[in-house]
């Protein structure tokens, strides 16, 4: 066998291993990333979705956050405007997770059959924009 053929075979082997690892990786670790409407619709179609981990991205309904510091637990409601459901999370919440302004969160966990989302990971994004602040500042200045 010519060395270049051998090398080609070796390359094919490497590419095959990489592809296999990637396909398996996606199969085993891929997670649905959904909005509340999509999640509710999908779960109604396919109840097995309640048993696997999913990610959901939505806004926290302002005023819905209830904290239980002793149990390190928070309960709140998330919504995408059309669908909403309660979320319960146990653990330390990020600094940006507050009721002061409307925030967006990405919660990872299981959507229980009781309609409550049991989050194991909670990431909060601050939704406030600079532009809004400038308008506010300008207003304060004129009054």
């Amino acid at each position, binding site marked *: 066998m010519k060395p*270049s053929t051998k090398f080609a075979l*070796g*390359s094919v082997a490497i590419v095959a291993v*990489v592809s296999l690892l990637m396909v398996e990786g996606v199969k085993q670790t*891929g*997670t649905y990333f959904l909005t509340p409407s999509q999640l509710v619709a999908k779960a109604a179609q396919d109840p097995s979705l309640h048993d696997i981990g999913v990610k959901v991205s939505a806004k926290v309904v302002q005023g819905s956050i209830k904290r239980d510091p002793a149990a390190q637990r928070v309960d709140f409601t998330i919504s995408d405007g059309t669908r909403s459901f309660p979320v319960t999370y146990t653990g*330390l919440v990020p600094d940006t997770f507050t009721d002061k302004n409307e925030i967006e969160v990405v919660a990872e966990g299981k959507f229980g059959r009781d309609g409550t989302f049991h989050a194991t990971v909670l990431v909060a994004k601050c939704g406030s924009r600079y532009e809004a602040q400038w308008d506010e500042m300008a207003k304060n200045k004129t009054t």
Partner: protein
Amino acid sequence: MTYLGQFALWAAVLVGAWGAALAFFGKWEERPALATAITRSSYALCAALLVAAVALWKGIFTHDFNIEYVAAYTSRNLPEYYLISAFWAGQKGSLLFWAVVLSIFGALAQALTSQRFKAMLPYVAGIVNIVAIFFVMVMLFGGANPFERLAFTPPDGRGLNPQLQNPGMIIHPPMLYLGYISLTIPFAFAMAALLAKQLDAGWIVAMRKWALTSWLFLSVGITIGMWWAYVELGWGGVWAWDPVENASLLPWLTLTAFLHSVMIQEKRGMLKRWNMGLIVGTFLLTIFGTFITRSGVIASVHSFTQSAVGYFFLGFLMVAAILSFTLLYTRWPLLQPEAQLESMVSREGAFLYNNLALVGIAFSVLWGTLFPILSEAVRGTKITVGPPFFNKVNIPLGIFLLFLTGVGPLIAWRKASAANLRRQFIAPLLGGIVALGALLASGLRSPWALMSLSVSAFALVTVIQEFARGIRARMTMHAEGAPVALMRLVARNRRRYGGYVVHVAIMVYFVAFTGLAFSTKTTVDLQPGQTASLKSAYGHTWTFTHLGVSQYEALNRRVSAATLEVAKDGVKMGTIKSEKRQHVDSFGNPTFEPSTEVGIRSDLLEDVYVVYAGSPDGTERASFSLLINPLVSWFWIGGGILVFGGLLTMWPGGPQVKTARQRASIQAGYTVPLAGVAE
């Protein structure tokens, strides 16, 4: 000053476009004066952008809050050194920073490149000018002009995001930017070589130090980014496989592949097409990274404000890809290899597999990063893959690569004989086996950790063996003492031994990553005086006693600090303090959300990492996240070794070069044959 800044931006566009037009359409080959004019357009572009930079800095330092950018990212009470970094803290300023630095690099490339390559320089100027004015155009037409003024003057600025108020943040973004930006120069040389049809190894010689510089900046930028994430973000890890992190890793991977494969082109005249493809791909990945970071198409914790600017980059990415690959295609026949692969068991073979593994890793990282978009486009539902995916794919490939790190430098060129293999690999293999035995005896059972650590030991012994043989050869040939022999050995072969030092740094990173996999964690809620405990991976029991929460005001923030007394197996090890900070403007109004400063006690074996998560109002009861992370210090030590090795490789000077043949062999890094191998 904003008028001056605006004017400077327009001047930069005009002079840059003029230079580029001359470079591509002015027949400068026959007219040296024209070629000089093109070079000067690079200098003029640089001068104009420097003026713009000075104008923005003036606005920042004089607190001219009428400038939107200054008001958005600084405030009166911001410490001065953060005023410097405010320049690149936001989208608009960072675009200007990018353009300025690129124009400086472009000017340096014109000034420092040897006259031997003057047939390429006008094209290099043309390419750099185009990339630089693209950035300026984004500022002028993409709604990202840092000199924009507000309709009113706020009394104080909004201040800098507290997470960016960290010394690492002064260094980390510019380092990564410098890495990204300097990659334009090797790309420009590659394009210039294609345009001028100068397709020997000349362009590689001309741009090699630029590629190394860029690699070094990227490595340092990524490492400092890891450090920043570790001390600032409070989740206790250094790498989260976040899209933006991946975006910085991608060009690093392909550039690493390129730095290895060009050695084969220099030495054997092979892989010419592959090298061109790699450098074009690497450049495109930097633009892709910029697109990811700035467009917000993929959800990431690192966010610039989402804006249309991203789409300028997407457009630029496509145009650059089409033009450069078309050019490569038209020159394809000129890029014939001068030699064929003779055996798989050879250095060429090892380097080829190293390249495949690096590109394979890069591809899987790209795939995982884009997977949410791809799955949504193909199947209509967004599916994300997280750290488990990247770890699953990259740990085996990474260990394979680490193995090649040991093999590559020792195996013979062309075709390795059985004798060569025996001679080179017996000691390293023994080293690996001894390490494996020792780890098993110490009770380690995780297969990946065992492999990672024993392969690291194997690769480390190869480097030690190389140094030892080189030193011994000098000691016998030149009758030198060991320290002198070491100094001269390295000084005469900087590229080779610098490269080995960098390899050691990579092994240290592997060890540190392996250690981090054994991190232990708990979250607790403590009243003052109460104690919690946590076992470390080594089996030690650490106890944490809550001493209380104190509140005080600092320069631009109100601080609540919780202090824990820590003890290891009952022996007191001091206290660790973690803070909650509420930043305020100069009128005492809160700005931003509260942020957390973690407390870390670090030694060579493990880090104790404390995150104070807050107290119910008015009490000293506190929630904590407690982590014990083994071997984290070794990331920073590895970073230091890497910088040292990188600088060693690039340090100017070296042995006197008289003939072209000598030059070629030194540049390839192989002037000293392996001791004892017949020459």
